[in-house]
């Protein structure tokens, strides 16, 4: 099986550690993951901001970069959901039947990390070690758009040494919402502050999620509040072992 990593533009630019964690994790599980360097972005920012025509070349680049792979894995529920639900809309808008066909063929082969691990590899215990108190924010796009269900939680429960604690009102949105965070920054911060309060109430040392966009928002509030709580991507927890690299 030829597997590609879609690292996402945000992780590529701001959180390369997450991409590196996916690479370490997948290699440990025997998957020789490739990084097609022609990749850029899923185009969600454009679509969700109302700029669908501007997303067409971005989606075309995505299809060209990944069409030769059996599976594409990405450490972002939100970007995976965009590929699965929005690329079709963008391709139709382009009026290019080849792009529509390309999207139809590729989209079902794109997996969010926890889906790829549980559904494609059939692994729940990934051999990780992480002796910390952790709480999980399920993220809206992972749970509501992709329907990943309890996959992230099952993966975390199988991590050796971990203490998983409950996040109050976990299902509630953190308020990031892409450009919503800027266009409606007051509401976004109000939602995020409640999320940060629930994270503090959980008693966790580390907040984990499958999307660095949400974590950037919640983490930005937590560090501003000097809450002493770290945020980490799910991939980084699952990649962690006793060996210090």
């Amino acid at each position, binding site marked *: 099986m030829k597997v590609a990593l879609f690292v996402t533009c945000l992780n590529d630019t701001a959180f390369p550690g997450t991409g590196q964690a996916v690479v370490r994790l997948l290699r440990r599980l025997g998957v020789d993951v490739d990084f097609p360097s022609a990749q850029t972005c899923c185009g969600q920012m454009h679509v969700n901001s109302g700029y669908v025509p501007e997303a067409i070349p971005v989606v075309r680049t995505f299809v060209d970069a990944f069409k030769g792979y059996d599976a594409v894995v990405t450490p972002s529920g939100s970007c995976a959901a965009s590929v699965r639900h929005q690329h079709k809309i963008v391709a139709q808008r382009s009026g290019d039947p080849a792009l529509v066909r390309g999207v139809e063929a590729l989209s079902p082969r794109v997996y969010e990390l926890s889906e790829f691990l549980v559904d494609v590899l059939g692994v729940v215990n990934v051999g990780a070690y*992480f002796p910390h108190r952790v709480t999980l924010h399920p993220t809206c796009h992972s749970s509501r758009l992709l329907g990943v269900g309890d996959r992230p939680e099952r993966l975390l429960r199988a991590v050796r040494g971990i203490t998983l604690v409950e996040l109050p009102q976990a299902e509630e949105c953190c308020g990031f919402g892409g450009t919503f965070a800027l266009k409606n*920054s007051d509401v976004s*911060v109000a939602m995020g502050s409640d999320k940060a309060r629930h994270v503090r109430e959980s008693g966790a040392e580390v907040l984990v999620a499958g999307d*660095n966009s949400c974590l950037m928002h919640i983490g930005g509030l937590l560090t501003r509040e000097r809450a002493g709580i770290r945020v980490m991507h799910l991939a980084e927890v699952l990649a962690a072992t006793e060996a210090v690299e």
Partner: protein
Amino acid sequence: MNKPATSNTATFLGMPPFPVAAREALANSQLRRNLRHATHTIRSKRARVVEELDDWEQLRLAGAAIKDDVLGNLGGYLEQLEESLTRAGATVHWARDAAEANQVVIDIARSHKVDEVVKVKSMVTGEIELNAALEAAGISAWETDLAELIVQLGNDLPSHILVPAIHRNRSEVRDIFLREMGKVGRPAEADLTDEPAQLAGAARRHLREKFLRAKVAVSGANFAVADTGTLVVVESEGNGRMCLTLPEVLISVVGIEKVVPTWTDLEVFLQLLPRSSTGERMNPYTSTWTGVTPGDGPQEVHVVLLDNGRTKVLADEVGRQALRCIRCSACLNVCPVYERVGGHAYGSIYPGPIGAILTPMLRGVGTDEATDALPFASSLCGACYEVCPVLIDIPEVLVHLRGKVVDSHRGGVPGALQAAMTGASWTLRRSSRLALAQRFAGLSGRVLGRRGLIGRMPPPLSRWTDARDAPAPSRESFRAWWARTDGGRSGAGSTAAGSTAAGSPSDTTDEGGEPR
């Protein structure tokens, strides 16, 4: 005594756009507490009674399918409805817009020489601002639903579809009753407390006078059954039943999307609506009436079938699903945005997620700033879609409408966002361009980022950093790391700091959560 005390019925027109109105609402901590308590209470009641039904998902599918059938054959069903209503002795009026509908109601009221009407709670008469039109024609419209009465007496605006006075607490209600009831009818007793039973008693005595006196009533309808010509109103307080049975003349203003084919279809909606709306298995009062029944109830029955933008919505392939809406308000009660800002910020009778799609479609996008801001008043979390009893994919329609808003502004001088989006699109169509941008970002990250975090940025990015730290761009992008280390195979497997969302390195496992 019959004239309203104030001459200016409150209106949503001219309210500031959502981000501005939301900021003001967020500053009101009493409002936020009221909303939080109320929405969470209804939310959990709804969850409990929905959980009870094994066939809830099938009911949702059936509800959506019935509505889609109606919308796909609307002309035929409406003609059938008109025929059934006429046969049953009702008079059918067609209104293209608010002005036409209001004029029909005014003309009927005038033909009976009345200067007042009693009203059943209705969203559509709020949409067409009927009360203001009646007032301008010298006719008082008395709201008889408790929450609508509170809103009207307070010269206020509704902020929720189901509980329009959700933004008021009981001591505010007491003050409004004491201050205002006497100006328009029977005053509240001077020793009125803020006990709910006492408040309800005061409202009952105040309203009783109006129920017994009114000759004309105005209602909406939750459903209109095409094959029998039956209108249906679903309510909790019994005030609707009073209005629908006591007066001599009944005028019902009904949006054309309210039609259902048969009574059998009602079975689906009478399960979906109360559970989604009040979180009850069944609502206390369900009134149905079919034209005129000689010697019983109103002897003159009018039905005003209203378009007011609905056919425009119907023409929108993605947006038309909004016409399935049965006004249950479940989407409001689960919406994290609504919960924090309340209904007024949406500047429309239809607040919350459904309002954010329905209002721009009914009004048309590209005309005013406040309307165009509505599709952006969402974090796209999808909680609304999850609870919608007729499966309206509100996030999908929001995104669709954002595109329409952007398209309506194309061709002029590009704003900052449009320039940024065009630039990003150019950058993201070639990975080499992205790599170049990342090298510049990486350099700036070295300058800006203290321990991988940026505490302050200039406008408009200050909207982020006013309350949140921002991650500094990584000194080395993932793609640069991959190229340098051959995907980590060449030994130098780890990266520089600033690589995780918290701005701290993560590739060791024994690091504590150090406060910064």
